[in-house]
């Protein structure tokens, strides 16, 4: 798989590049800022990019901007955003307009080669990837009347995996059940929570995240 890595801190960038090469990826470009990344994407036409959320010149949300730009201009290129912030709002902003081929992972997680490889594979297959830490923070959010209490333990588990962006097949593999069982679970969950989104589509991730963040706690 052809990948570009954009990260301004050399130490981290080299680590990621080495990891990707070891895992058999072809790193076709390295960038240190937004403009360099956009140039490389046009030149190299990679299948995916790995982007740090904070890059020069302003060190704020360049990565998010880059992700949105790439998703609009090169819809076939997947984007994996790396961040040190456990910020559901960033993750939601990322998947808001294009809920497919994007991912938001905490930076330390990618040093686990298996997770990095899995995330990139899922992204290029058209799924979206949300960091489990963010999902577990949202699921574990303190609520006065917890609508999640209507769910069985298994249903909660499935809900969290849906929020992480896993497809029904991926959830089935993870839980060692059949895809049909997962389908039944998601239907049941969406019914109980009153969620309107199509439980089979990528849009369901955003719907679940929005539900988990609903203002009346």
């Amino acid at each position, binding site marked *: 798989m052809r990948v570009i890595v954009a990260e301004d801190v050399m130490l981290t960038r080299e680590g990621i590049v080495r990891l990707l090469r070891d895992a058999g990826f072809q790193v076709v470009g390295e960038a240190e800022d937004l403009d360099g990344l956009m140039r490389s994407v046009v030149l190299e036409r990679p299948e995916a990019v790995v982007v740090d959320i904070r890059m020069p010149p302003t060190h704020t949300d360049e990565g998010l901007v880059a992700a949105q730009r790439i998703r609009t201009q090169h819809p076939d290129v997947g984007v994996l955003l790396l961040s040190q912030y456990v910020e559901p709002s960033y993750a939601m902003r990322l998947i808001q307009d294009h809920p497919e081929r994007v991912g938001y992972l905490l930076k330390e997680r990618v040093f686990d080669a298996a997770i990095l490889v899995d995330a990139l594979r899922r992204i290029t297959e058209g799924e979206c990837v949300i960091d489990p830490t963010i999902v577990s923070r949202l699921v574990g*959010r303190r609520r*006065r009347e917890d609508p999640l209490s209507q769910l069985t333990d298994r249903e909660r588990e499935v809900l969290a995996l849906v929020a992480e962006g896993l497809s029904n097949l991926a959830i089935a593999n993870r839980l060692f059940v059949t895809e049909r069982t997962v389908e039944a679970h998601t239907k049941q969950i969406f019914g109980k929570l009153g969620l309107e989104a199509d439980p089979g589509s990528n849009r369901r991730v955003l719907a679940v995240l929005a539900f988990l963040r609903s*203002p009346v706690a």
Partner: protein
Amino acid sequence: MGTRVWLDQPMRLAGVLLPASAAAVGVVTLRVVPRSDLAVTTHAGASWAAGVADLAAGLGLLGAGLVVWLFRPGSGSGPLVVSLAGLAWLAADWVGWEGGPPVARSLAMAVEPFFLAFVVHLVLAAPGGRLRSRHRRIAVGAVYAAAAIVSVGRALFRDPFLDPWCWSNCTDNVFLASAQPDVARALDSAWILFSLAVGLLLATLAVRQMAATTATARRSMWPVLVPALLLGMAVGAHALALLRQRLESPRDPVFSSLFQVRAWAAVGLAVGVILVAVRAWRARATLARLAADLGEAPTPGSLGLALASATGDPSIGVLYPLPGSGRHVDASGTTVDLPANRSDRAVTPIVRNGREVALVVHDAATVDPEQLRMQIGAAARLAVENERLQAEVLAQLEDLRASRARVVEVGDAERRRLERNLHDGAQQRVLALSYDLRLARAGADAPGASDLAALLASAEEAAQGAIDELRELAHGIYPAVLTEAGIGPALWTLADSAPLPVELGELPEDRFPKAVERTAFVVASEAIDAAGRLESTHVALRMFRNDDRLILEVKGAGPGPFVHLADRVGALGGRFTNDASLIRAELPCV
């Protein structure tokens, strides 16, 4: 009006003479105006309507002078000029006094030309009663000089008996030194041309004044300028008529209608002068009331409002110099720049005991600086002093607030810097460490090295712990999401990770000034912490914009105390209130 101690001697004299002479002249003129069918020697005598117009004009101007003098003390020679214009107007009736004392008729002949001079003087000196520029003084002086030459020349050289165009007085000139019909005729011709010129000048001046000055000045001056325009045109037209037909006849429709126009224009002028004077008097009364209200401590800015209504200039402003800083503040203590050199704005300093206590910024065209000083001096001295002291205190408060805000700002900037250093420094290094550990563990997974692998696994775990803690620490020092996404998303994050349920009500999507967002965040965060310590069941939080304020309300955080929150909100010029059930912070967010 009982305290006019500042009146000087000539004004006292005028005060006695004016009403007396007005009454006398009026009564005599009534007797003088003949209604003869034989010879018509005055316009007033030509018809009943002309008589009414004539008396209205003459007595109107006399009375207007009196009213100005009564209602607008301190307007210098103004009232005298107006009354003299009335007298000069009535002189025409005395000239034509058939059978009257020759000395009265001759004297009236000498006075008559001055009417034009008095009118030009009073129009150019309006509204303050003073000629404010050198040009105007020269113009008025020239008209007086011309009138004087004609007056003296006629007195010395005109023998009415030898005047082919005499109509109102064909017999008497007691001052005659030597009969010089040619000289008298030349003088008459010159005076007609001069009157034409002055009439047109007066009209042009009135139009220009109306067009050139500010809206405020127009509003206050039109009652004088409109009649002046009319009168100027009528005087010019009269001169033209005389050039066409030198023998004036009050029965001729052209002359009689021109007389009517002149007379009613003069009446209009009298009414206008009264109107302007009464307005000014009411304005003074407002200022006097302000001075009287001082016992009840007027709100800051009431002096400016009183002056605005006193001068008719709504744009007027009072500024106070701050001792030792070179700055000027308004009544609310806000620093204000003096207007740059602009022709339409003027700055009049108010000086007390050799010290500049206030600056009045006003419309240059409407407000006469001299008069302004007097208006303030007479009635509002205490108001000025009081407001100046208030403004000083308010300005000091404002400085203090600004310095508090700077302290908070510096603190925030420092925290932001720390967060960045943590993020780009320590956090990255620990990440790299954790990566190296992972690689080392992969290498150590070989058989027989299980101790090493276990050791590395625990080191890796420690590194992950350090990463988590560093992240929390960095977020606590300064949440990056606050700068990057704004207060709304930052409050979401706060609610996501709160130790108790946080119910979010309406939240604004707009961005606000950095200091405002940071302060709102600190208030929300501390309130949630306090609620957590109290073990409340939940916290409800909402934030909305009310005009130029951002309002944050938190329910369920307990009674506090939240002294440092009040300090922080106060540093931005906001308001912090709290009781057992509600915390409310109002932050100015212009």
